[in-house]
């Protein structure tokens, strides 16, 4: 049987996300409790978390989280890493032995910044430099996989149920202002740690419940911009599309959402002239970046997260608000487990993003105001 990464594995899943918009840090226990509620939406073949704000002491360093199959892969990776980056700290990611998480690879993290001379020689900015590094490791070093490459954030994932993964990584000991979680239900997999969600590139992390029927179209579109999809996994392309749209093309998050879940042409026809020009051009230019098929997805980026469904809502997604906290999850139960009396709970419509960003001075709230009593 081919290892995942060489073969595409369809899957169903559970997702959950929590943000404190004031930037206050809170323990990873909340997100673990939330995702655990949806145990039956996973099957023990993948669970994972993304945590933002967890490395304040190294906030200017790229935090590389790595899986290695063996010491040879580790050595080869470190040779490339250290040739290109100044590494401030390298360590094993702390884990605890549990009964449910088995066959763990070597799991390391490195806090690093590009070597100035290498960066200058590459004529790239540090983000592009780092993307090339990530793709290089993931494509060319057998048994090595960069699964997190952002700053002041990290991804923790494994083969197992999400609550066991949280326990394995001791997530209760981390404090972040934004957390994503995922429980995976692949239909047929030998169980590969890299195949678990979240998928991450720089500061963008994605958890996804669904399967993209547009995967091959999206993948080929991204490859034209230099992205290398090594994992044969739908969610990977979603992460790269958001990186392309937000970081490279500078689109605001609202418009990026209107690319991946574009309004229907008949909706565009009813728009004001100015909007019609904008959305027509978006659809024409970014048609191949449309994510098709069923999905509910949470995409975390530097300023917050967005939760979004496919435009005909083929997967569940519920949102809730309490004070400065915003919660999103596949099921309402996962929210109520960690937020007893939410001020409001609503089910976003297909393609309607729930945007929850850190509050900055005089900034109005940007998340969806459309509320449906759950």
């Amino acid at each position, binding site marked *: 049987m081919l290892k995942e990464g060489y073969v*595409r594995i*369809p*899957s*169903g899943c559970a997702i959950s996300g929590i943000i404190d918009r004031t930037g206050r840090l809170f323990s990873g226990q909340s997100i673990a409790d939330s995702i655990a509620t949806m145990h039956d939406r996973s099957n023990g073949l993948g669970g994972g978390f993304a945590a933002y704000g967890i490395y304040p002491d190294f906030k200017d360093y790229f935090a590389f989280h790595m899986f290695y199959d063996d010491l040879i892969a580790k050595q080869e990776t470190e040779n490339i890493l250290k040739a290109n980056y100044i590494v401030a700290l390298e360590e094993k990611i702390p884990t605890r032995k549990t009964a449910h998480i088995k066959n763990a690879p070597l799991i390391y993290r490195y806090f690093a910044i590009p070597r100035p001379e290498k960066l200058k020689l590459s004529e790239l900015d540090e983000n592009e430099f780092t993307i090339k590094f990530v793709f290089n490791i993931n494509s060319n070093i057998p048994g090595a996989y960069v699964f997190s490459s952002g700053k002041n954030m990290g991804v923790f994932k494994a083969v197992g149920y999400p609550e066991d993964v949280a326990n394995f990584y001791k997530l209760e000991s981390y404090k972040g202002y934004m957390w994503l979680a995922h429980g995976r239900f692949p*239909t047929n997999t030998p169980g590969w740690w890299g195949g678990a969600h979240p998928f991450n590139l720089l500061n963008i992390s994605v958890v996804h419940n*669904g*399967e993209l*029927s*547009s*995967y*091959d*179209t*999206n993948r*080929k*579109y991204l*490859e*034209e*911009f*230099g992205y290398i999809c090594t994992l044969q996994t739908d969610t990977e392309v979603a992460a790269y599309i958001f990186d392309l749209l937000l970081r*490279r*093309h500078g*689109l605001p998050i609202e*418009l990026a959402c209107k690319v991946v879940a*574009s309004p*229907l*042409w*008949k909706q565009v026809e009813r728009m004001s002239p*100015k909007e019609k*020009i*904008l959305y027509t*051009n*978006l*659809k*024409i*230019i*970014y*048609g*191949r970046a*449309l994510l*098709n*098929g*069923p999905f509910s997805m949470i995409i975390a980026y530097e300023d917050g997260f967005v939760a979004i469904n496919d*435009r*005909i809502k*083929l997967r569940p997604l519920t949102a809730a608000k309490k004070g400065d906290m915003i919660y999103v999850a596949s099921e309402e139960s996962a929210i109520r487990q960690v937020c007893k009396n939410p001020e409001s709970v609503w089910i976003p419509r297909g393609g309607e993003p729930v945007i929850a960003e850190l509050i900055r001075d005089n900034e109005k709230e940007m998340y969806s105001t459309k509320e449906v009593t759950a």
Partner: protein
Amino acid sequence: MSLSYLTPEFKVLRDYDKCINCKVCMRQCSFEVHSYDEHLDKMISNDMNCVNCQRCVVLCPTQALTIIKHPQTFKEHANWTYDAIRDIYRQAETGGVLLSSMGNDRPYPVYWDKMVINASQVTNPSIDPLREPMELRVYIGRKPDKIEIDENLNVKTKMPPQLKLETPIMFSAMSYGSISYNAHAALARAAEELGILYNTGEGGLHKDFRKYGKNTIVQVASGRFGVDREYLNTAAAIEIKIGQGAKPGIGGHLPGEKVSEDISATRMIPPGSDAISPAPHHDIYSIEDLAQLIYALKEATNYQKPVGVKIAAVNNVAAIASGIAKAGADYIAIDGFRGGTGAAPKRIRDNVGIPIEFAIAAVDARLRSEGIRHTISLVAAGSIRNSADIVKAIALGADAVYIGTAALIALGCHMCQKCYTGKCNWGIATQDPNLVKRLNPEIGYKRLVNLVQAWSHEIKEMLGGMGINDIESLKGNRLMLRGIGMTQKELDILGILAAGE
């Protein structure tokens, strides 16, 4: 040299119990197969003239006629086949190049039929187009890498001109000359009603059809027939015709006897003169020459019209397409070796070029590898026979398809492959006023609309089955295809997996 060794290809069987001597068959047959024998008081047939166009069969009020392949044959021989021997007789009698019409009819593998389409089950639900929205609209034209907007969400990107198609189907280039006025009238009106485009071919744009300009692609071929500033600016897009699938590397020739007053005015050539499109354009002997023509046409139309380039599918089509993309074309139309024609040398038609399936896959892959696929549109042509062929073409990498032969069949063509004679009994490939009248454009356009709408419905059903609700997400989505009965090399070129993988 009056002696002919040819035997009839077809045999007309007449049921004399049914025949009422109404002479409809006689009046309908431009090939003069049927006649009335006063002495015998019955209709008789000259099998030698029959081309199996089936006009008489269809219009016979008592269904008295049947046409069969003539039972007379040669001694069985796997190498010296019936066709091979007949062709030698024909050439020994005439000393000429053998002409034929419509597409390549040799039994090459049809790769569309070796590919099957995916459908969703459980993990990814199929979408029912009767309940859910399903979008088939596509835009053909050059696309920028990215959108640029200001802080007020005004679009700053200057979008190159685009062709809007409500379904990813266009009517292929067929010139006025090769097909009739009424056929053009039907195509133009159908294109307008369907929100798609038809293509004038290289024969100019008849003044009556200028009102359909926004649904018209005009060609600039080597003959430059009918090309002037008004012609260019009336159309929605301009297509430089370099090659045609039925006759790659070959020019065109409309005999002078077909150049009527009307055609002469449309083509801007003297009546009765031969209309010759040379094999090369007189001003294009390199890719940089092509670039200059592309920009000359853009200048002439103030950069308001997409300029496409049509080429035949040939061995190195991927490199050629890459050159065309870099020469500034807005779209590339690629015509496979089964593409139709009004007249082509039979040997060329049947032996030159490559299947469109491979050409599209190779071009799409090449443009992607160069990172420019998303900037240019690709139109596949050359024997698109049904909606499944369209789905497969788009999954292999096309943005849209051209249909030619299928459109003519919708108008009544029975594929007798005698367009080059100008005697088309169905009023399609003829300029004979009496024959042209047989094609009612009112009925013809409705049949075309029906065909394209039916195919569009089917495309929606197949998309829904794949769990896709926008045709954009099918483009280049080769994971939706699997091959059956192909070699690994063929699968590799098409970029698809084998069934079961």
